């Protein structure tokens, strides 16, 4: 299946990027493995009140022509030989069906949505094995005050100034990170949206 852009992640950042790109007439596919942290914390309080609303953002994208893959995730990626370009990706549900696009948005969030995964000895990014910034000493991952900013919130994938993901020191020229998956200061909801928009703008400049 071939698209102009494939957005990986259906949270606030991914939906914003997909919305901007689809609005610009691009053929966009979006993979949303489950609902997002934003959905979990900002969603309706009562299931009875609005059974349909957790999907409202994704439904709106579908209505705009975005192909939304609910409950599916990208599990594997083929890079060019020099490692500077994503050629195609594969999803859990679509199996060996290659998913081809000019550019990709990595908007998989942090730990909650498994955009980055931590274990006792470190942190990694599961789709591209991109470079992740984190504190090697586990004792420094947290502040003993629950309510203080937590160092773990700064962990995330490394990017260049244009938001392109870096792997093994090499910039991947058509993979743009957006939202909480980024390393650095944790983002507010507005910050997440604007990073999604920024990724879309960068993509439209180049791809």
């Amino acid at each position, binding site marked *: 299946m071939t698209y102009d852009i494939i957005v990986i992640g259906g949270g606030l950042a991914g939906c914003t990027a997909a919305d901007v790109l689809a609005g610009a007439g691009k053929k966009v596919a979006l993979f949303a493995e489950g609902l997002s942290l934003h959905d979990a*914390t900002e969603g309706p309080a009562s299931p009875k009140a609005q059974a349909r609303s957790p999907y409202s953002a994704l439904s709106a994208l579908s209505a705009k022509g975005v192909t939304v893959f609910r409950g599916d995730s990208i599990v594997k990626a083929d890079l060019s030989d020099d490692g500077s370009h994503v050629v195609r990706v594969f999803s859990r549900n679509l199996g060996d069906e290659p998913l081809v696009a000019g550019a990709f948005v990595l908007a998989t969030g942090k*730990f909650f949505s498994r955009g980055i995964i*931590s274990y006792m000895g470190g942190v990694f990014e599961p789709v591209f094995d991109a470079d992740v910034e984190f504190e090697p000493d586990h004792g420094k991952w*947290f502040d003993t005050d*629950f309510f203080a900013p937590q160092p773990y919130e700064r962990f995330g994938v490394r990017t260049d100034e244009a938001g392109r993901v870096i792997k093994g020191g090499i910039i991947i020229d058509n993979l743009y990170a957006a939202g909480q998956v980024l390393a650095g200061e944790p983002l507010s909801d507005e910050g997440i949206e604007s990073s999604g928009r920024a990724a879309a703008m960068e993509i439209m400049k180049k791809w």
Partner: protein
Amino acid sequence: MFLENSSKEYDVIIIGGGITGAATARDCALRGLKTLLVERGDLCDGASGRNHGLLHSGARYAVTDPEGARECISENRILRRIASSCIDPTGGLFITLPEDSLEYQEKFIKACRDCGIDAEAITPEEALRLEPAVNPRLIGAVKVPDASVDPFRLVDANILDAVRHGADVIKFRAVTGFLKENGDVRGIVLGGSSIRARQVVIAAGIWSAHLAELGGAHIDMMPSKGSLLIFGHRLTRMVINRCRKPGNADILVPGDVVSVLGTTSDKVPFEDCEDIRATGDEVSLLLQEGINLVPELSTTRIIRAYAGVRPLVVADKAASGRNVSRGIVLLDHELRDGIKGLITITGGKLTTCRLMAEMATDLVCEKLGLKIPCTTAEKRLPGSKVRKSGKDPVHKRAAVGRHGSEADIMDFNAKGAGEIICECEQVTRAEIEYSVKNLGVRSISDLRRHTRVGMGTCQGSFCISRVAKVLAEVLGTPDKADELVKDYLQERWKGMSPVLWGDTLREAEYMHKVHRK
């Protein structure tokens, strides 16, 4: 009755609301003594609430401490009967790995039998059939009558029984000194006020040393820190032990709906006891050893890490914790130090709490010139009355599982009473109301100890605000809900942060997003 203060004069005051104090208060009350128990925090706040929750069969001590082992098996049998609602008769399995020796296993079986402990060797195949999660490399296994005991409920049950037999309880007030007349102890001082009693019993775990000091006596104690890990669900049905000389991280206990792995053993200074927490190194050590018992521990979510302090009394000059006597220590300070009216009961084990209480109460009675027989071994504790079998409604089952027959006095008929407030642990409003009314709960942490509220995999992320709202309502301070949440989260964080990775870190991110606005 739960009191804030008291102007009554008592036959006996017990200091310490852990299992030893609670069991002693019960025994004293059952023998008709006018009894007061004083606890500086909440019940079960110290080592009683920070252990494995293991009802020893005595097998673990059979080789090294036969006397302790005999005490264990005899008390094990008694508690199964009188505290059935607090005990899950899981049975225990001692496994021998290739790096251990089958000769030790033989010695172990013989030692168990000499102490009157049923120990039955089974084949590795049979062990794996019973417990598919144990290390498949095992070369031998022995079944023993270990069990899982809920220490929180055991303390509660003892306190409830004491209160129902006339005892008073004052929580959240620390003893700051003793009323003294001619060098003899005549009561206690609680900050500005004092309460008179004919006998005072110190049953304050590691803090007994400090209290004895206040009373003018010296006990040479050694705080021994033990760290433990809680895994998110039950990995085994039985208690799993290593069949070797007792060491680090060689017991896995299925406690309620979780698995508890422990423990370490390290000497720590007294000043560390106030805010004891598990360290990253201890977590690593526990895991490294634990996976030899049950390999699946390496891929199971750790909900939290915590630590308690064993109140070891130094009987010799041994430097590390494990060889120091853990036997029951009953000190008659009149005989020992010339201080009339003061007794200390410490050492011992959770399993032998009733026996410790009996010994202390016998001495109290002797001092008071009374001859009243002990009945604690025969009378069932609250919650352990025989219930009519039959299906309870779904929303009541978890409460019955925790509180046994006490669940029948919870009001499940009131409007909204059956509503589940904490979903992981299925705690209903009725159970919360019961705990506030019967156990003097003030904070969510207190409530947690009595009901398991917030002890589940989410550690309160999802429902703690709802819990706080209900608790604040029941306490009559509805505006305090946010404060209750804050205190609680801070306390949970202490146990989550040392194991902050994998799903526990995912949970933390969710928790922060919800609760740190």
